């Protein structure tokens, strides 16, 4: 990206970012987001993230976007993992151990079935 020299430049970046998001949503790609704030890491988020990435590699799953986010504020539920399938509502999972992560990848990401046991209501 080039430096922002005026309002239009900023607007352009914003629109491109929003469009990129839309494309991800409409393309049917699944987003898997792991909260990697310090509280998440203290609760084991690194191992959870590792399990997610290893699962994707082992099964060679296409069209998955894995990203990270900061502390959501639901610290006692950490590690927290969120799944956004295409344009569906985001589903937030709590206390996601590496085993739970693998289950969620298999059931929700691959088969589209929400794993009720780990779902937590989100905020905002």
């Amino acid at each position, binding site marked *: 990206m080039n430096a922002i020299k005026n309002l239009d430049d900023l607007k352009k970046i914003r629109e491109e970012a929003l469009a990129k998001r839309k494309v991800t949503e409409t393309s049917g790609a699944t987003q898997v987001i792991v909260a990697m*704030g310090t509280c998440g890491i203290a609760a084991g988020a690194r191992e959870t993230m590792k399990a997610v990435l290893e699962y994707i590699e082992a099964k060679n799953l296409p069209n998955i976007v894995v990203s990270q986010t*900061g502390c959501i504020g639901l610290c006692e539920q950490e590690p927290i993992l969120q799944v956004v399938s295409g344009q*569906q509502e985001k589903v937030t999972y709590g206390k996601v151990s590496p085993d739970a992560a693998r289950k969620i990848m298999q059931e929700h990401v691959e088969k589209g079935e929400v794993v009720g046991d780990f779902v937590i209501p989100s905020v*905002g």
Partner: protein
Amino acid sequence: MTALQAELAAKGLADEVKVLETPRIGDCEKGPEILVYPENYHYIGLSVKDIPFLVEEQFLKGRPVTNLLAPPKKEEAQELREPTAKEVRVVLRNCGKINPENIEDYIAEDGYSALAKVITSMDSDQVIDTVKNSGLRGRGGAGFLTALKWGFTRDAVGDIRYIVCNADEGDPGAFMNRAVLEGDPHSVIEGMIIAAYAIGAQQGYIYCRAEYPIAVRTLEIAIEQARDLGLLGEHIFGTDFSFDLEVRQGAGAFVCGEETALIASIEGRRGEPRPRPPFPAVKGLFGKPTNINNVETYANIPQIILNGAEWFASMGTEKSKGTKTFALAGDVKKTGLIEVPFGITLRDIIFDVGGGIKDDLQFKAVQTGGPMGGCLPAEYLDLPMDYEKLTQAGSIMGSGGMVVMDEGTCMVDIARFFLEFIQDESCGKCVPCRVGTRRMLEILTRICEGNGREGDIELLEELSVEIRQDSLCGLGQGAPNPVVSTLQHFRDEYEIHIRDKKCPAKVCRALISYEIDPENCVGCTLCARNCPVDAISGEAKKTHVIDLDLCIRCGICNQVCNYNAVNVTT
């Protein structure tokens, strides 16, 4: 599609509403669908005759047409949780939603639009007036009117000015700032650039405690990305305004959260506070006018600029405007961060948003405002969160840490605990704090060890008055607060410790003993095997016995017993 476009054009909305054709959104058996963005309203089963009404309601009046909406999915219903209706996320709005290491995510959420508005269409007076009318008060704890501080710094004599962000969040139990720094660093950066513009500063520092290495890293990445886009550095937005930021780490000293100690630390010196006046606004970092604000104060600025002062002032109480983040910790079910408008009661925070006490035990007290805050008992649960009301009740708002305590907490032990922390962190410069807090700690330790004496309470009270009056900085001045507030609300507990040598909450080791109930003990030997000092004897399947001379009162036997056979008495 054609009908929609024609209707939009007829209502003059063709420029505002963009119509995009996409592949299927959801259940196409139900009929034509429209997804309205950014509100995310999903309409299904539409026919041409629905269009005029839909356009009028949705796009002209901004009201969704509920009978045409797709039914909510199961996950949505689960997300509609009553308690969070009390939360309003301003500072935390992006936390958990964006990737903090991607500046585009922030920009997509209107990031840096406030800065653009400020630089291209507002002058310093207008910015400061907006902040003034919003009623924003410093979120670090003192609650000083932000606009007033900015004005002082701007009008101070001198050419060089600095902007500093206090990210040395050291209050035990407080982690609000950490969440913002790790989850939405750009909100702070944008707030600082706007402040620099209003005040006329060229250089800024974010002083972040070294105990937050991830926050430090996230900030450094964010600053680099902002620089790459020209949002920091020379000629921001092509104007004459230039400003750059640097992260400075602390090195493990709680007192560096105090502004003059923080300045000393950035200057490479011992973090010892100095008397004020002169205030940093007039003579601060490197002797120059310096504006120091907390992370949360800066993080509010972009939203205030974008949504307006009235919007911010519409939330909260008469003197405490806007929202505040709180970190719930201790014996509450849902620990973590919340953000609520001022005016919400402690009861709502703890029992509604916080879900109540863990294991459904009895609420005993809540400490607000960090280690220099006060402990408030159940009578204060209906107190609205407001700077002045908290101070009147004998506590402080502080930075927002809230430690909830249940019936199993000994208030004398808690006071001793906080004082131990304060004593440890006292910089040592002034006698009232250095020596006074040490004397108070000695007295409290004696009381908890069963060596309390008649007159101890009066001595604590006397010391409290003097330490408060005569200490150089906020750490010393606030140090007696936990003791004063627990004495005020839980005096009987102190008296029982001193007079009867008992601890009603059964916490103070020297005043309790553990014994095995022969009625419940099945002789499983679990307690004996786990005892770190081999104080428990007994044969398998026979009642066990604790040797009180050896017992160190660690409580492990009580924890591991599955038969409720270990009792604590005082």
